[in-house]
């Protein structure tokens, strides 16, 4: 645990070189993604926690299939987030060094977002990924991350803050609805579509 002190700051701030840049979807903070099944096992015993779902066996099996889909390298994450033209921005939640576990990291959560654009209202913020390590949940870290992203959105003149949630992740849906977010898929029929790599190559061939 921590003594409640958590700093949320923007990766790359403070002028230090973030050579130990850690972004991932799981508890391995050496830059590897995604979470190991053991993390999910921890989640199961933490009922009512904010972000990770309580996966069924089917979901776990599908999740493990997703491991094959993690294609990105740490190098790519660095260039894409910290190059001349960043494709994403990241907030990290950090605990004081004295509070961390032995061999553990001070970074215990993150929020990854980017700016999008609406032909009706202009600039928006899109929260792509948010994660808090299982042991640090229930302390308001997730809320702090969301709050910080809301601040960034307002600061940058954004009219909306959008995100996607999986329909079986009820606790996440409740979390966002409790803060006033609207489920546009239900309310207005919006659906996510995608042309994957193969489909795009077909379009080029046409």
């Amino acid at each position: 645990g921590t003594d409640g002190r958590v700093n949320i700051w923007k990766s790359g701030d403070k002028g230090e070189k973030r050579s130990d840049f850690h972004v991932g979807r799981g508890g391995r903070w050496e830059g590897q993604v995604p979470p190991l099944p053991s993390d999910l096992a921890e989640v199961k015993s933490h009922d009512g926690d904010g972000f990770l779902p309580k996966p069924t066996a089917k979901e776990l099996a599908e999740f493990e299939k997703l491991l094959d889909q993690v294609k990105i390298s740490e190098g790519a994450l660095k260039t894409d987030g910290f190059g001349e033209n960043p494709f994403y921005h990241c907030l990290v939640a950090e605990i004081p060094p004295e509070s961390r576990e032995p061999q553990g990291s001070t970074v215990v959560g993150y929020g990854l977002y980017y700016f999008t654009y609406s032909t009706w209202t202009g600039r928006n913020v899109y929260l792509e990924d948010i994660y808090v390590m299982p042991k640090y949940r229930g302390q308001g870290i997730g809320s702090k991350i969301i709050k910080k992203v809301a601040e960034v959105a307002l600061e940058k003149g954004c009219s909306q803050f959008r995100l996607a949630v999986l329909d079986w992740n009820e606790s996440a849906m409740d979390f966002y609805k409790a803060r006033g977010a609207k489920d546009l898929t239900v309310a207005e029929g919006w659906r996510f579509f995608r042309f994957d790599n193969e489909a795009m190559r077909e379009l080029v061939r046409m």
Partner: protein
Amino acid sequence: MAAPFNSHEGLVPEIREETEERIRATQTTQTEKATLCRQTMTATTFRVRPAQPQDCPEILRLIKVSCPRTGGWGMGKQVPGGGQKVVEAPQELAAYGNSPDAVKLTLLDLLKDGFGDHPFYYCLIAEVPDDAELTGTLTVGFAMYYFTYDPWIGKLLYLEDFYVMEPFRGLGIGSEILKKLSQIAITNRCSCMNFLVVIWNQTSTEYYTRRGALDLTTREGWHLFRFERKELLKMANED
């Protein structure tokens, strides 16, 4: 804001003259012009190219024209009543964004956000020769896109809006736009192209699924959530 546009400073005073009223006034003219142009077209030549700052007035015109109330066939913003083959939608949706007044974006926003220091969007323009004016062209369609990011697979291309004026559909302009977008995605090492479609818009849904698009909401259960400004202020100001 001083000199926000590096190479386009000279353009700003000219663009300022294009007031919102003028753009509204040109909408009808351009729509009539487009219909006439289509009727007199001898060859169906068209070109799809990246937008320049000078295209912003036309982009704004097309954004407003593509609003459902005017019979537009835009992307995820399509609502019933646009004369398309759509399924009945909830009553509340009929009022949503059904008017060009829902477009809050101004010409200056488009210029600053598309052609300033940090582009928030990119545009492709579809144009045809304007036979009435020997050296002129008529802008008849556009696509607005930007790059997004998935931490597992990296960059993605996101298609925000995609519209072709009614008289110019069925000529392959849409396909050419999608082809160019795919080329841009592949060149920029994007794994895929994402976009939103309103499920009640059968025409749009079929257009995309016919071309190989997958409905991730159905397949994987993704729902789109939105916080508006009111909620942002509340969250930012709470303890």
